[in-house]
């Protein structure tokens, strides 16, 4: 059974239909890169997967939980589906360790001591062991984003959603974040990324999804799709960003 299964999902903001019947299957260990122009619906699709946005029809099953169901157990779902945002969204009133420990202690009821050990472990993974007790405001954008990744990892998610996580970063800080994501991919983490980093999508992705006007316009193995885009829209898109 796929880890995430999206079937004919439609979503409108008022009169504007942003998702016009999207279907997508994500297997365990997949690294799915979603690309497309702004307004193509890729971020909205990602936000539907963990219930941040409601959709009007179709179905999304994530880790066996129906996301849009009337009595959807969003808490259970979100414990297993992590998300990292473009704007980091660290909690400014908590230290780095506090950020990483919050959901563990509040949601999982992990004892403080153990939560701190897990925090140390995931912060080491993103290369920020020495920043445990720093405040978010003392960190660079790249460091903040790596803390945000660690914060998600602390919940041991089965799939991690990344919404343009390098788009708000200065160019010289992009790579430190991408390296962390690449490492996660190598360790077998299931990732769904909305990204503008084409090279990263090609080199690290196991699946490429090109969205256009609220539909999955083309998908396949990244290297093949980039080398020989079938549709003129993707040809044009690849041409414009390369």
């Amino acid at each position, binding site marked *: 059974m796929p880890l995430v299964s999206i079937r004919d999902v439609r979503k409108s903001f008022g009169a504007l239909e942003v998702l016009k019947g999207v279907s997508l299957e994500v297997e365990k260990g997949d690294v799915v890169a979603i690309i497309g122009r702004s307004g193509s619906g890729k971020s909205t699709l990602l936000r539907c997967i963990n219930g941040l946005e409601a959709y009007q029809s179709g179905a999304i099953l994530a880790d066996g939980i129906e996301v849009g169901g009337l009595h959807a157990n969003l808490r259970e779902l*979100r414990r297993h589906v992590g998300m990292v945002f473009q704007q980091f969204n660290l909690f400014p009133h908590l230290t780095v360790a506090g950020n990483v420990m*919050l959901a563990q202690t509040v949601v999982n009821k992990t004892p403080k001591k153990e939560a701190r050990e897990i925090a140390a472990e995931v912060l080491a993974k993103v290369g920020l062991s020495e920043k445990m007790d720093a405040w978010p405001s003392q960190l660079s954008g790249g460091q903040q984003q790596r803390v*945000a990744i660690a914060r998600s990892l602390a919940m041991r998610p089965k799939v991690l959603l990344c919404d343009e996580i390098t788009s708000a970063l200065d160019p010289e800080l992009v790579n430190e974040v991408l390296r962390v994501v690449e490492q996660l991919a190598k360790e077998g983490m299931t990732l769904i990324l909305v990204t503008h980093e084409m090279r990263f999508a090609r080199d690290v992705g196991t699946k490429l999804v090109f969205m256009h006007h609220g539909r999955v316009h083309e998908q396949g193995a990244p290297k093949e799709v980039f080398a020989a885009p079938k549709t003129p829209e993707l040809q044009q898109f690849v041409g414009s960003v390369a």
Partner: protein
Amino acid sequence: MLKFSFWDILSNLLIATEWTIILSLIAFFCGGIVGLILLFMRTSGVKPLEWFTKSYIEFFQGTPLLMQLFLFFFGIALFGVEVSPWMAATLALTLWTSAFLTEIWRGCVESIPKGQWEASATLALTYIEQMRYVILPQAARIAIAPTVGFSVQVVKGTALASIIGFVELTKAGTMLNNATFRPFLVYSLVAAIYFCLCFPLSWFAKKLEGRLNAAR
């Protein structure tokens, strides 16, 4: 006829001031607790709860505090329930305070970026947990200055309780004036005492505001 010296007047006023302070403190703290509950309802996203709090706030903000005092004092008595001036004043001022505090705090909660809500939701926190651990700690920082500032309004609001016969500073002033026929002296003293209560509060609020802006 009894003779009142300046010191007699002042000491009587100061004794009554105690009740102004007690009434203010109760209204402020009880109003704060009710206000916090209303704040949770107001920002919950649950339509009936939001609708109820909105109407509640509209009622207490849109009618004079004096009318609210009358409603509690005379209104409830119509149902055969004996209401003392003290009871009516405490109740009316508490609810009045809660409405204003809810509205002040709602503004502070709404000034917290949407990303904080989304990040905490994504980490599987429930609404109450989001408020408790993520939103309120940040909103409280912004809320302190306007909240302390509003406490001045509460202190001055207690003066209206004199009209339903509750003996606090203003009522004592009226009684002393009736006995001494020295309105200028008596009411000057009353005003001065209110000022001594309120000025430190508004000064403190300004200072907090300045410190908060500097911290940014």
